[in-house]
């Protein structure tokens, strides 16, 4: 079963043949004197209109009758700039264009490809240093990142294995197969890599358990059941570079002695499922997956299992139940899956990011990885930074980078000159950290110490208009809905927490609610069976700790300081600012709550208003007459004039 060093030359030779092939195919494309247009076609790109943009390019190229290639790639992580297009026009550096609408696409073809004018007004930056066009490296969103896992995302075509191999892919697997399993486990232990799924368990130790575990067969599972509402890096990795994950899985399988692999993907990610399936097929055809990998007697086959929408299945014992065709309910541990997992056999479960880091570690060595980032959680961390931030998207940074750098320097801070309030890290298991914690380095231990959690890496930035009580309520609503219902604390406890929070956001909070929340949270944390229940109270506990004044304002003054809780706010139109005869707001109101006053200004019927805020957006900026107040009784009452009887 083991490919000893004796046949390492044979492995190398097999791999070199593969690589020569791949380089030849991609060298031809790169060397060709034909313009090449690459469009980011991952889910977010498509949602932003990449399909229409691609069609526009193709049509325009046909109309102008020029020779150019239009290709799809994955996601580069710059979601704010989607659809994102890179044009490599001979004689120019590769240029990156942001927010490319079909109109811009047509303009780029006729001006740039035909007339040689790169249209500076649409340029985001050049991908290489040059003296013609400013480089994207001048832009902190590019220069401050350090990419391991996402290095090739958005740069290669995920549907072509040759592209991955040409960029150095599967080299780590070839290297690994010439080592003994013990050597690989040791390398991973040296690297200090910790599981990127949330809890941060040492990957090397997990593999060691797996290697030592006895069982007639072993399974490697890639956990891609990314359920945190606000995190999507796993999806992006699967869509943009599926081979890197497969390579990591194969190395893991060789190290622990597994023959079967399963990628457990959320059903909500159809494109990711498609990409990983294509990748498996191609990898098998090339002999880097399947039986007798690279000429050795090591065999490893991978299948895809689609989750059916249950957040709790991200928990490894629940995930196993679900693969076995049962209700995804977590089981008491021990036994741990590494010893008794799927069908009672040893099962190694790792997150997408963890497995995708493995090829780089094997290629560059464990020491290299250990040197990167903070000493106790070395390596890189991938965050999806979203919410009230100027440049949202995926960011890969060395661990230990401070939150301030991440939110303000890399992602541009909060837009519209609103004040930063908090950053929510780790989704439903994490917490909200206020400004005072912005200098916290992002690594497993520092974040837990601050009360949050690395979790899956979802990061939502909140500004002064975000209500912390409402955010806590939102997360409890989520965990409560996703609780499997097995154990008492999670099933009933989270519902009780939610009820109290709902009461508070509706202005029905009572004296003693804060204390009740605190004790209940502690008990749920202590008493729950699995990680979902144990971490569910975190959003409440951190917001209570850092934003207690907001809870008190809701309970005692029935006021929402952020003006978000709809039961505690009201909109009204400032008659001094409202322009006579203007009716911009009237059409925007979905419930016809806006009426004309006697002197032909507008006012809001509070009994009808649903507080959606559309009128605020509709009111012309020179008037800004619509105001939001909390508590609602501060809004002046204006009677609707009697309609003339017909």
């Amino acid at each position, binding site marked *: 079963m083991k490919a000893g060093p004796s046949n390492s030359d044979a492995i190398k030779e097999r791999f070199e043949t593969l690589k020569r092939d791949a380089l030849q195919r991609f060298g031809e494309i790169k060397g060709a004197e034909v313009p090449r247009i690459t469009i980011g076609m991952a889910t977010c790109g*498509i949602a932003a209109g990449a399909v229409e943009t691609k069609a526009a390019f193709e049509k325009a190229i046909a109309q102008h009758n020029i020779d150019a290639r239009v290709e799809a790639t994955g996601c580069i992580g710059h979601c704010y700039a989607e659809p994102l297009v890179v044009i490599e026009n001979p004689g120019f550096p590769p240029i990156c264009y942001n927010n490319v609408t079909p109109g811009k696409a047509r303009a780029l073809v006729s001006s740039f490809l035909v007339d040689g004018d790169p249209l500076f007004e649409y340029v985001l930056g050049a991908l290489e240093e040059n003296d013609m066009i400013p480089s994207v490296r001048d832009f902190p969103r590019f220069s401050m990142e350090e990419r391991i896992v996402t290095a090739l995302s958005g740069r290669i075509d995920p549907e072509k294995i040759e592209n991955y191999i040409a960029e150095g892919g599967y080299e780590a697997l070839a290297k690994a197969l010439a080592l003994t399993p013990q050597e690989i486990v040791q390398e991973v232990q040296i690297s200090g890599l910790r599981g990127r799924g949330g809890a941060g368990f040492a990957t090397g130790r997990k593999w060691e358990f797996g290697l030592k575990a006895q069982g007639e067969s072993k399974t490697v599972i890639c956990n891609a059941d990314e359920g945190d509402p606000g995190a999507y890096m796993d999806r992006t990795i699967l869509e943009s570079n599926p081979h890197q994950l497969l390579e990591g899985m194969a190395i893991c399988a060789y190290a622990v002695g597994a023959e079967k692999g399963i990628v457990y993907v959320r059903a909500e990610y159809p494109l990711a499922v498609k990409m990983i399936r294509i990748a498996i097929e191609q990898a098998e055809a090339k002999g880097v997956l399947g039986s007798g990998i690279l000429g050795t007697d090591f065999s490893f086959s991978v299948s895809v299992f*689609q989750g059916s929408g*249950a957040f709790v299945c991200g928990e490894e014992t629940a995930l196993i139940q679900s693969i076995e065709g049962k209700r995804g309910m977590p089981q008491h541990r021990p036994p741990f899956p590494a010893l008794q997992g799927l069908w009672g056999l040893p099962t190694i479960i790792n997150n997408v990011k963890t497995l995708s880091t493995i090829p780089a570690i094997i290629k560059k060595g464990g020491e290299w990885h250990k040197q990167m980032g903070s000493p106790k959680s070395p390596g890189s961390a991938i965050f999806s930074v979203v919410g*009230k931030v100027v440049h949202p998207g995926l960011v890969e940074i060395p661990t230990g980078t401070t939150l301030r750098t991440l939110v303000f320097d890399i992602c541009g801070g909060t837009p519209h000159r609103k004040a930063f309030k908090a950053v929510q890290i780790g989704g439903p298991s994490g917490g909200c950290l206020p400004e005072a914690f912005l200098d916290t380095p992002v690594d497993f231990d520092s974040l837990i110490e601050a009360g949050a959690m690395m979790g899956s890496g979802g990061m939502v930035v909140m500004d002064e208009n975000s209500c912390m009580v409402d955010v806590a309520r939102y997360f409890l609503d989520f965990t409560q809905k996703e609780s499997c219902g097995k154990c008492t604390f999670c099933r009933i406890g989270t519902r009780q927490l939610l009820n109290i929070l709902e009461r508070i956001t509706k202005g029905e909070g009572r004296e003693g609610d804060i204390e009740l929340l605190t004790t209940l949270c502690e008990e749920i944390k202590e008493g729950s069976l699995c990680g979902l229940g144990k971490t569910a109270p975190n959003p409440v506990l951190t917001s209570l700790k850092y934003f207690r004044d907001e809870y008190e304002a809701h309970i005692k003054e029935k006021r929402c300081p952020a003006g978000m809780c709809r039961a505690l706010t009201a909109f009204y139109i400032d008659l001094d600012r409202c322009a006579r005869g203007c009716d911009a707001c009237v059409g925007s109101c979905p419930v016809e709550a806006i009426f004309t006053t006697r002197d032909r200004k507008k006012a809001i019927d509070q009994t009808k208003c649903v507080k959606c805020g559309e009128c605020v957006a509709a009111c012309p900026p020179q008037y800004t007459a619509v105001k939001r107040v909390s508590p609602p009784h501060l809004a002046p009452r204006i009677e609707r004039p009697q309609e003339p009887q017909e």
Partner: protein
Amino acid sequence: MDAARPNENDDNVTPLKVLAATLAPFDVKRENLIPILQTIQEKEGYLSPEAMKMVAKHLGVTASEVYGVASFYNQFRFHPPGKHQIKVCLGTACHVVGGEIILENFERKLGIKHGETTPDREFSVDRVACVGCCALAPVAIVDETTHGHMAPSKVEGILLGFQIEKERKEREKEQRESGSQQ
């Protein structure tokens, strides 16, 4: 209608033969239960009581087991969906920019609550937890199309678009019919 008691008298039941053909390629293995249910739902749009009973028979487990598993997962529905499926994302990023307001607008305009289908079976509205397009929040998915940066006015626009499309088709149909009569 309570989900624990799937509608026994649904008139929209797929011919059982078609179902049997769907089941045939799957081995009699418990781990095929979820993939089978997913395949049926993809074809039928939902899981009818008859379908679940057939799956049970195929796999040699009780119908109760099948329903127990199916009702655990968000993905499975027990009633036929609308012709147009509207899913409103309520992920964190969408929530902080008013995803719930978008959902409410769909609900109000269609006169149904999330999880329900309009009486004419044209539309169904569901809430989903994060589709991973957070930078475009708030997001709604209508059939296969993702709509980013939603606003109540866009809700109206989307529904109006369907209305116009439907009327156009009806007109065409009428014209064709009146044309064929001549």
